[in-house]
C-alpha cells in the first residue's frame, strides 16, 4: 500500500483541529468559519472512509492497508490496518462525527471553538482505536479518548457535570490500568505486542485466564456491563447532546470491538472458560436494566439504560462465538450506534426547545411537531428491533446464535425484546401522543433543516440495512469465519 490512507484518516481531524486552534477569534463570524473547517474536515474523512470501504477486499482474511513503522525501540511498532470488522466501525465513527458537528449550532452556546476541537480530536482517537494492530498503540488511542470526553462532559455538560465527568474518567481509567499491566505482560511472555503476530503465535494457556480478566476489567467498564455500568447514565444525562451521541454511538463500541479483536482473538481458551460469566452478566444487563429503564422519568436516562441493555445483547452475541452470534453483535453495534445516536439527538431537540428532559413535561407533541413524531417513531421501532429496521437483524442473529449454544440463555434474553418494546413504546406514547396539556409546548417549532438533515441521514441507513443487510454481512463474513476458525483451532490444539 503506497498511500497511507489509514494514517491520513487518523490525522485529518487533528489537522482540522489545529487549524481551528490557530485561528484567533472571539466573534461569532469566526465561530462560523471554524465550524465550516470542522464540517469540511469531517465530511472529507467520511468520504475517504466510504472510498476505503469501496476498495476494501471483503474476501481476504489478512489485514489490509497495513502500515508498519518503527516506533518504540523496535519493540512496539506503529502498526495499523483493518479487516472486515474494523472497517464498519471506522465508517460509523466518520459518519457520526460530522452529524455531531452539524448539531452544535444550537446546542452549544459557549466556547464553540473548543468544542469543535474536542470533537475532532475525539474522532481521530476513535478511528485510531479501530485500526490499531498493536496493543500499545491501541491502548494509547483507547485511553487518549478519555481526555476530550472528560472535557466535553465537564465543560459543556448539565448541572451535575463535574460529578459525572469524574465518574466517567475514573471508572474507565481504573478498568484500563489493569489492561496496561496485561499488555506489558504479554510483551514479556510473547516478545511482541503486534496483534497479527500474536494471533499466529498464540499465548500460553496458563497465562490466558488472568490476562483475559485484565482485559475484561477494561472492556466491561467501557461496554458497560452490569454491575459497572453506573457511570453511563450519569455521563449521558449530563453530557451535551453531541457528547452523548459520541459516547453512545462509538465509545461504547470500542469495548465490543475490543472483546472481538482481543479477548476472543488472543485468549480463546480463557474466552471459553469465562463464557458463563459473560452470559450471566449479559442476561442481568438485558433484563435488569430494561426494568430500570422502564421506571425512568428522564428521557436521556431511559435511553442510557436501554443502551446498557442493548450492549448486553452485544456481549452475549460475541461470546456465543459462532457465526450468527458474532455477526449479529457487530450488526447490533452498528445499528445501536445509529439508533442511539438518533435517539439522543431527538432528546436533545426537545431539550433545546423546552429545557427539560422529564417525560412528564411533554405529551401530545404529535400535533405540533409531526415531522419529529414520524422520525422518532422510526428510531423507536428500530430500538425495539422491529423487522425492517437494522435493530431487528442484529437482535435476530444474536438470538439465533444464542439458541445454538443454550436454550435457557436465549429464552431469558428474548425477554429483553419484550421489555424493550415496553419501555420504548411507553416513552413514545407519553411524549408524543396523549393530550396536549402543557400550553408552553405550543410554542415549540417543528424540526428545522439541519435537524431534519441529521435525523434523516440516520434514518436512511437504519431502514436500508434493516431491509438489505447484505453489504454489512458481506464485509464482515470472511473476517468472522477466519476468527472462528482460529478460535476453534486453538481450542482443539489444547485439548
Amino acid at each position: 500500500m503506497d498511500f497511507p490512507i489509514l494514517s491520513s484518516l487518523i490525522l485529518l481531524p487533528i489537522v482540522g483541529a489545529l487549524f481551528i486552534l490557530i485561528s484567533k477569534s472571539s466573534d461569532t463570524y469566526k465561530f462560523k468559519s471554524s465550524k465550516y473547517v470542522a464540517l469540511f474536515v469531517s465530511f472529507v474523512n467520511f468520504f475517504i472512509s466510504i472510498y476505503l470501504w469501496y476498495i476494501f477486499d471483503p474476501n481476504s482474511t489478512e489485514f489490509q492497508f497495513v502500515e508498519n513503522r518503527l516506533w518504540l525501540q523496535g519493540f512496539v511498532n506503529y502498526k495499523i490496518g483493518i479487516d472486515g470488522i474494523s472497517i464498519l466501525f471506522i465508517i460509523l465513527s466518520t459518519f457520526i462525527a460530522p452529524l455531531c458537528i452539524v448539531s452544535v449550532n444550537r446546542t452549544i452556546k459557549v466556547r464553540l471553538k473548543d468544542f469543535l476541537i474536542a470533537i475532532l480530536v475525539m474522532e481521530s482517537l476513535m478511528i485510531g482505536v479501530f485500526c490499531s494492530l498493536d496493543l500499545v498503540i491501541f491502548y494509547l488511542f483507547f485511553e487518549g479518548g478519555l481526555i476530550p470526553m472528560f472535557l466535553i462532559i465537564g465543560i459543556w455538560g448539565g448541572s451535575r457535570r463535574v460529578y459525572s465527568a469524574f465518574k466517567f474518567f475514573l471508572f474507565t481509567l481504573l478498568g484500563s490500568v489493569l489492561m496496561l499491566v496485561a499488555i506489558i505482560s504479554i510483551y514479556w511472555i510473547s516478545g511482541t505486542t503486534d496483534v497479527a503476530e500474536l494471533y499466529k503465535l498464540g499465548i500460553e494457556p496458563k497465562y490466558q485466564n488472568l490476562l483475559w480478566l485484565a482485559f475484561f476489567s477494561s472492556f466491561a467498564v467501557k461496554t458497560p456491563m452490569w454491575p459497572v455500568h453506573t457511570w453511563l447514565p450519569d455521563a449521558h444525562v449530563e453530557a451535551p447532546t453531541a457528547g452523548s451521541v459520541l459516547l453512545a454511538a462509538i465509545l461504547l463500541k470500542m469495548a465490543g470491538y475490543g472483546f472481538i479483536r482481543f479477548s476472543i482473538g488472543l485468549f480463546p481458551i480463557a474466552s471459553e472458560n469465562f463464557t458463563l460469566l459473560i452470559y450471566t452478566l449479559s442476561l442481568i444487563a438485558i433484563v435488569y436494566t430494561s426494568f430500570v429503564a422502564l421506571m425512568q422519568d428522564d428521557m436521556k436516562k431511559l435511553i442510557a439504560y436501554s443502551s446498557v441493555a442493548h450492549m448486553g445483547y452485544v456481549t452475549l452475541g460475541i461470546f456465543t462465538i459462532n457465526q450468527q452470534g458474532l455477526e449479529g453483535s457487530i450488526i447490533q453495534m452498528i445499528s445501536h450506534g445509529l439508533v442511539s445516536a438518533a435517539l439522543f439527538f431527538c432528546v436533545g431537540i426537545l431539550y433545546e426547545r423546552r429545557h427539560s428532559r422529564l417525560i412528564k413535561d411533554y405529551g401530545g407533541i404529535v400535533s405540533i411537531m409531526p415531522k419529529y413524531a414520524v422520525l422518532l417513531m422510526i428510531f423507536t421501532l428500530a430500538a425495539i428491533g422491529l423487522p425492517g429496521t437494522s435493530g431487528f437483524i442484529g437482535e435476530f442473529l444474536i438470538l439465533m446464535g444464542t439458541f445454538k449454544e443454550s436454550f435457557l440463555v436465549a429464552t431469558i434474553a428474548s425477554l429483553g425484546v419484550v421489555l424493550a418494546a415496553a419501555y420504548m413504546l411507553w416513552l413514545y406514547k407519553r411524549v408524543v401522543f396523549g393530550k396536549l396539556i402543557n400550553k408552553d409546548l405550543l410554542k415549540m417549532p417543528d424540526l428545522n433543516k439541519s435537524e431534519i438533515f441529521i435525523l434523516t441521514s440516520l434514518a436512511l441507513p437504519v431502514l436500508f440495512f434493516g431491509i438489505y443487510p447484505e453489504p454489512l454481512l458481506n464485509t464482515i463474513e470472511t473476517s468472522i469465519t477466519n476468527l472462528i476458525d482460529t478460535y476453534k483451532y486453538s481450542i482443539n490444539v489444547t485439548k
Partner: protein
Amino acid sequence: MNNLNFIYPEIFISLSILFLLIIGVFKKKSSDLVFTLSVVILLIALGILIKFPSDKEFFLFSDSYKIDQLSTFMKIVTLISGIFVLISSYKYIKLAKIIDIEYPVLILASILGMLVMISSYDLIVFYVGLELQTLSLYVLAAFDKNQRNSSEAGLKYFVLSALSSGLLLYGCSLIYGFTGSTNFALISENIFSSDYGNIFGIVFILVGLSFKISVVPFHMWAPDVYEGSPTSVTLFFAVVPKVAALTVFIRFLYVPFFSLIEQWQSIIIFLSLASMIFGAISAIGQKNLKRLIAFSSIGHMGYALAALSVGTNSGIQSSIIYLCIYLVMNIGFFCCLFMLKRENIFFYNLEDLAGLSKNHPVISLCLLIILFSLAGIPPTAGFFAKFYIFISVIEESMYFLAIIGLLSTVISAFYYLKIIKIIYFDRPKEQYDKENDLGLKISLALSTLLILLYFIYPDSLINLVSKISII
C-alpha cells in the same frame, strides 16, 4: 594528569562562583549582571560536558571520582534543568525582591555540590558534595527574609536535613568500619551480609538518601518547605536536587551494595509503594498548589524508585527516563505558577485557578497538557514515563508492585482532574497579568511541546539513556 580535563566543569563553576562574589563586592547594583552571568556560566559548563566522550570511563583522584555515561548524562540533566529554573524564575525573583547577588551564587554552589555528588565514587567525596549542596539549599529556602514562612521553611529544612545527614554519616562510618574502605569499588568487594554492621550501614544510608529525595516515610519536610520557600526556590527544590539524589541512589544501590540486593530490595519496594500511595492520597486534600506539587513529587519519586528496586539495567534506565520527563513536567507546571500574578502579587491557591481557561486560554491549555501528563494519561510524555517503569517492573514479574503502582495512578488522577476541573469547569475570577517575560514563555512552550509531542519520537530519550549501564 590529562584526565583533569574531565572535571573542568566543576573547576570552572567553582572559580566562577568566586569571580561572581568579587563582582558583587566591587560593583554596585550588580545583581542583574550576576544573574545573567550565572546562566552563561552554566551554559559554558554544559558546553564542556557535552563534549565528553560517551563511551569511556575515567577515574580521578585515586579512584574517588568517576566519570562515566551515568555521571555525564546526569550532570547534563542537572545543568539544563538548572538553566531552565533560572531563566523561568527571573521575573519572579525580581518581583519578589529577592534578587541579591547571593541568590544565583548559591544556586551555582548547590549545583556544584550536585555535580560532585553525581560523580563521587567514594563515601567522603560524596558527603562533601552532599553538604555543599544542602548548605546552599538551607540558605535558599530561607532566602525571602521578609516572609516568616520562608525563614520557617529554611529552619525546618535545616533541622531535619542535618538530622538525616547525621544518619547518613553514621551509616557511612559503619560501612567503613566493616569493609575497611570508603571507595565504592573496594566496598563492593568487601561487603557481606553476614556482617550485621553492613546491613545497618545500608539502612542508615538509605534513610538519609530517602530524606533527600523525600520519599515516604521521610517526606515530612517536603510540603512545608515547598510551601514556605519562595516559589523560584520551590521549583529548584522540586527539580534539580532530585537528579543528583537519584544518581547517588543508583550509584549506592548498584555499585557498593549490589551484592546485598536481597537485603535492600524489600526496603526500596516499601519506600516506593508507600510514596506512591501516600503521595496520591494526601495530595487530594491540598488547597495550596505548592503543597500539592510537593505531595505529587513524593508520589513521582515513588515511581522512580519502583524501577530502581528491580535490580536490572533497564530498571535504572527507565528510572532515569522517568526523572527526565518528571523534570520537564515540573518546570512547565511552575512556569504556569509564575504566570499567575496580578499587580506583582503571586497566587498559589487552588481556587485562584478558577475559570482560568476563560481569560487565559493558552496558559490553561498548557496546564491541561501538563496535568494530564502528570497523571500519566496517554498520549502525553507522562504516560510513557510510567510505561517504561512498568515494563521493567513487570519484566522481573513484580506484578504486585505494578498493580499497586497503577492503581495509585488512578487515585492521583483524581486530584489532577480536580485542578483541571477548577481551571475549565468553574466560574472565572479576575484576570491575571497578560504580560510575561520571554524566558518564561519559552520555558513553558518548550516543556509543553516536549510533553505533548513526545509520542512522535519516543526513541529520542531512550537512545540517550540506553548507553548507561552500571551493572
